[in-house]
């Protein structure tokens, strides 16, 4: 006979036993050993295929059940009973198993409440903290702020995956919209107006969407060519700033671009 056991449905032998106890409507404190052992063996036989190492756990339990069953058939020795006068149940061979089952059942139930909490928690969302490092000075940055370990790093990575998952469908489903250079020129101008006519080049590219970036870039070039905006930089490698040169140009601008 082969010990191929299919166990995915249960989280181990204790889980299987709890399932049987429940199904057979047996009192957990008074387990009918013959019945449960028979059922357990039947299940283990009926299960097929799984890693040997998990199968072994099921087989160890099978052996335990058989041993309890046989102990219960033995008559209790008179002397033993006298010695253990104070503890009435000490001779019940099922005790250890019952305690184990009860202990396991507690956590199995706790796992169910965790799962419910997980579901509730999934109904509201937080946001990642804003990256404020540009407000920090370099001296501060060079300090190690925390006692971070590899798992903090992985945790950060995990958070990022979660965040990316949030935006993924939009990139595939929605953001394929075509933005015209004309529209983007208007958008750049209105953005500049909202910011008193001056904004860093970087801030004109709030999105990572390639089409939008390219369109925005082309529209800025076009605006420069038409001398509607001007770009300035104070020192090498400093941020570029885009300046709006003409204030009110909406009307002439409209037909100009339509050509």
């Amino acid at each position, binding site marked *: 006979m082969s010990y191929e056991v299919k166990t995915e449905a249960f*989280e*181990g*032998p*204790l*889980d299987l036993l*709890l399932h049987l*106890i*429940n199904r057979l409507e047996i*009192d*957990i*404190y008074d387990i009918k050993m013959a019945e449960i052992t028979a059922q357990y063996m039947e299940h283990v036989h009926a299960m097929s295929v799984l890693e040997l*190492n*998990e199968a072994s*756990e099921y087989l160890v*339990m099978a052996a335990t059940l058989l041993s309890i069953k046989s102990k219960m058939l033995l008559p209790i020795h008179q002397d033993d009973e006298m010695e253990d006068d104070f503890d009435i149940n000490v001779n019940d061979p099922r005790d250890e198993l019952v305690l*184990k089952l*009860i*202990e*396991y*059942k*507690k*956590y*199995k*139930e*706790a*796992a*169910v*409440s*965790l*799962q419910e*909490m*997980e*579901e*509730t*928690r*999934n*109904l*509201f*969302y*937080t*946001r*990642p*903290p*804003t990256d*404020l490092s540009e407000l920090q000075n370099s001296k501060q940055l060079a300090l190690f702020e925390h006692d971070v370990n590899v*798992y*903090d790093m*992985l*945790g950060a990575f*995990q*958070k990022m995956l*979660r965040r990316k*998952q*949030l*935006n*993924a*469908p*939009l990139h595939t489903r929605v953001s394929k919209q075509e933005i015209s250079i004309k529209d983007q020129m208007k958008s750049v101008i209105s953005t500049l107006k909202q910011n008193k006519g001056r904004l860093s080049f970087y801030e004109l590219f709030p999105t990572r969407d390639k089409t939008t970036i390219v369109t925005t870039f082309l529209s800025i070039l076009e605006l420069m060519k038409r001398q509607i905006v001007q770009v300035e930089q104070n020192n090498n490698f400093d941020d570029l700033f885009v300046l709006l040169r003409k204030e009110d140009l909406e009307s002439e601008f409209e037909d100009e671009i339509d050509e």
Partner: protein
Amino acid sequence: MNSKMKLMSNIESLLFVSGEDGLTKKQLAFLTNETEEQISVTLEAMMEAYEKSEDRGIEIKQLAGTFQLVTKQGNANSIQKLVENPTTQSLSQASLEVLAIIAYKQPITRVEIEEIRGVKSERPIHTLSLKGLVKEVGRADGTGRAILYGTTTEFLQYFGLQDIRALPPLPEDISVDEMEDSDLFLTKFQETFEG
């Protein structure tokens, strides 16, 4: 009056940039130069205002020991449209069991976890540490100096708990009539998975 409005505005800004890290009353008091009492009163007023205003989409929650801004539950539907596949994120049964044991018995070693579950638990423990839900909190005395596991702040955050004491009490004594409850438990399970 104006100053109270200004304080609310300041708190909202601070909570907004702190995101899921949130801030404690003490931190808020320090950052706004106010007393903790003043912060308490103001936070309470804000929480009420958020909840009452139907046009607001965010509210304040106490999570993992800090105050955080979160979206209102009623808007979950439209936010979930932003999420690729909302169901794949939930934890497996094995992970939940191990996590329950760690949460209630911490600090605890792998061997002790396996004793309770009756099966090897290396893999779920590994998964849970990679997800940042549990971590090594020390070493057991004695030979081998086995790793002791405990839950993380991320754990509190993940399950929406203010602190570890906010966990529901562990079912202590399972008496005979409680076995009937386990029927309920199975039914619940079925509902959850079939639903």
